[in-house]
């Protein structure tokens, strides 16, 4: 083969460029600590990294969401716990004491206490967390519970709870879900085209206080007014008289209010009856119902606990996911620094050698040795 000077130079330049390019690539890997700095360098790894990054960010969002929901559940739990405690105090202590050989004067004191506890229960049912009423189901911007000033009856979202005609509406309110996406594969029915979320694919944070204090199977008092301590907040004998006019002695045990709040009012009104009209049996039956409501509220508390536990486990799963995704991402994106630095050092060595060879190639020819 005939070797010419221009051929040697072209060859040298081509190879020196290649060596420089290799050195620069390895240098970039070390400096950026990335396997690639553009998609073209490794399209499949880049696509994988994009998907992993997306999953990582979503996982982070779901974790934030789950932690926020956990706080909401804590607030719900606190409020229901208060209700449970009040219910327990009512049936286990105050209610029983008020029936044991008391006269009207003593019963008036107990009635006052019961009305006061009723109002506390109401406050707990209207508890607010982060500008949202925690027991309002999917209607969190408005206080869910109130006592009607005219009738003294409990209303949920403006609907009288103790009226059987309202049962279906109240059930709709109570059961309206409020789903949150916590990475369970959020999906709507009918293959995504429907308007209802597939319940297993999202977390239902809605909690209506009705679940804790309302017996949806009971027919209630049948529309009897239970006004006591409402409006001017004073208890007077007229209220007790009105109650007695509306309900005959002995009917109380058959026409008990279908919710904890109204039952408190009803019990207080019963205790306010004079000795002739006082109906021990009705009061006793009401205490029995109070105990049932205590159990119902306690069950709600357990239900919240189960949800909270599920969230806790979900957060654990997400934390583990985060670690796994971060590891996978690192494997795809970050080079093994030992290998990267070794490669860089070797490429630097090759580059230096190429430069040294260049000095020899370019300076020497036969002409240098001619005399």
């Amino acid at each position, binding site marked *: 083969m005939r070797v*010419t*000077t221009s051929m040697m*130079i*072209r060859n040298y330049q081509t190879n020196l460029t290649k060596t420089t390019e290799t050195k620069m690539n390895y240098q970039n890997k070390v400096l950026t600590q990335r396997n690639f700095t553009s*998609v*073209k360098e490794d399209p499949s790894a880049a696509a994988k990294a994009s998907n992993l990054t997306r999953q990582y960010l979503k996982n982070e969002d779901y974790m934030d969401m789950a932690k926020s929901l956990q706080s909401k559940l804590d607030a719900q739990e606190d409020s229901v716990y208060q209700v449970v405690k009040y219910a327990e105090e009512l049936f286990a202590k105050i209610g029983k004491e008020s029936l044991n050989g008391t006269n009207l004067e003593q019963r008036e004191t107990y009635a006052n206490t019961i009305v006061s506890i009723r109002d506390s229960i109401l406050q707990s049912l209207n508890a607010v967390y982060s500008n949202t009423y925690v027991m309002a189901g999917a209607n969190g*911007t408005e206080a869910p519970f109130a006592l009607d000033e005219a009738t003294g009856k409990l209303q949920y979202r403006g609907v009288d709870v103790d009226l059987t005609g309202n049962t279906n509406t109240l059930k709709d309110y109570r059961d*309206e879900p409020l789903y949150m996406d916590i990475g369970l594969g959020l999906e709507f029915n009918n293959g995504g085209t429907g308007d209802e979320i597939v319940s297993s694919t999202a977390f239902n944070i809605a909690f209506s206080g009705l679940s804790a204090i309302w017996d949806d199977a009971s027919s209630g008092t049948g529309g009897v007014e239970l006004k006591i301590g409402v409006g001017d907040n004073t208890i007077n004998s007229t209220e007790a008289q009105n109650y007695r006019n509306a309900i005959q002695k002995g009917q109380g045990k058959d026409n008990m209010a279908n919710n904890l709040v109204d039952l408190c009012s009803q019990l207080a009104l019963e205790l306010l009856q004079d000795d002739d009209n006082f109906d021990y049996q009705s009061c006793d039956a009401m205490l029995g119902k109070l105990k049932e409501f205590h159990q119902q509220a306690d069950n709600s508390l357990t239900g919240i606990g189960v949800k909270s536990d599920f969230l806790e486990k979900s957060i654990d799963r997400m934390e583990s996911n985060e670690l796994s995704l971060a590891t996978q991402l690192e494997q795809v994106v970050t080079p093994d620094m030992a290998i990267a630095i070794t490669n860089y050092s070797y490429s630097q060595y090759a580059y230096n050698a190429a430069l040294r060879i260049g000095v020899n190639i370019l300076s020497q020819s036969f*002409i240098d040795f001619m005399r």
Partner: protein
Amino acid sequence: MLRATFAGFSVARGAMSASMKALDVTGQNISNVYTEGYTRQRLDQTSFAPGYGNYASTNYVAQIGHGVLVTGVSQIRDPYLDIQYRDQMADVGMYDAKASVLEQIEGVFDETMKSAVKDAFSDLESKLLDLANSTGSELDDSIVRSSMQSLVNLFHSNATSLASKREQVTDDLETKMIPELNRLMKNIAELNKTIKSSDILGYPALELRDQRNQLLDDLATYLPIEVKYEDEKISSTEKVENVIVSLVMKDGTRTELIDHDKYGKFTAETTNKFTAVTLDLSNLDPNNTTPVDITKLNGNNKEISINGGTLTGTLNMLNSAGVFDGDATTEKGFGYYEQSFDLLVDKFAKTLNALNEPAKDNNGNPVGDGGALFVTDPAGAASFTAANIKVNEEWIKGNVKLKAKIDPNSGTTQNDNINKMIAALNDKQKFENPNKAGEVLFEGTFYNYYVDIESTLGIDQQATDNLLKNHITVATTIAQSKDQVSGVSLDEEGVNLMQYQQSYTASARLMTTLDEALDKLINGTGVVGR
């Protein structure tokens, strides 16, 4: 046959002259050892021996040659290597142009080292999740709006950037490449004329041929060409070389670009983003007044009629949109990335707008929150594009609100419609080819379609870079072979220097030897008796 007494002197003089010329040629070679395109020269000489075969000669007379005859100076060049080299350079030019444009598009879409559209999609979902967790809050609605505004700004930014890069490439083609092509053709034609004149005068014009070869090599990087050398008779005995350069069309036919001193002229004209290139051949043939259409932009057939060279590579990138052209083209140029991105934007805007449509009462009247989140600017366009999409001003003013719940009568913190939007961001959408009914180009989330655009670009770049590297390697190998034949070797020229110097010395020595011999004859003989 008697030998002339002083014949030896002319042999020595001829030899000295030839050696000196050879030294001159060696000097020319050494001087141009680093000159790009220089072809090694060689002194052509033959041994000179006139008078053989005279009928008066006898077998007993030794016939001796009359020295050396310099017949000319020639170049050592292999035309086959030129053809191979130019073929390869056409491919190098084409893939180089493509790689260069793809690199510009990479600057727009590649988000490996920057935070843009992909992160904005993630941020939007994050904000929607926040809103789902706090529906009814005026503040969160505006946070989602800000996130969508950022996304729309990034759509605009990519669209503007892409348009500016397309404009730059178009401008380069019109103001640099086409004038450069025309300049090259003109210069080659002018050199043809000068070389022909030199040939007629008997001057070989080797350096001009080098220049012409260099220009032909340059032309070959722009266009697929074929170079033919034809002898043209200028008298009954004399002929000169004529060069014909033809454009190799995709269908295998040839279109003459340069014939001797006549040459064609390329013209580029851009209308509605597409650049049409035509070749005017009226200078070569006055009867041929219809320019050759290189780009064929009529209808859907955008396949250009040549295949190779920077011009092809650039035109492919400017005029081809891959699958969006139907079956017409396969190259994914600017159009492919523009239309893919527009498709993503259109689907995204229409999906979210549909989800935000207000609910209707029994009479079909809208009730509750809702309304278009995105509108086109100017208003009324049938499709959203990355350039025309904008966040509805009515939303910014508060006249349109994000529809949080599907049923306006459900709870105040109900978020099922926000969840629908979140689900839509994670659902597999079908991205259909707007120019070919029923053809699904991609099925996946908005985010993944962007990743797909990014990956398609990366894969195309990788393939183009690899092809470019391959063609450069082959071209370099051929260039090496050309250097092997036509390049100057300083070692060889050094040896030549010694050789011709020795040859010159020997010729001079011959001269003095003859002088001494004749001196003996002239001055040293017949002296008896003097």
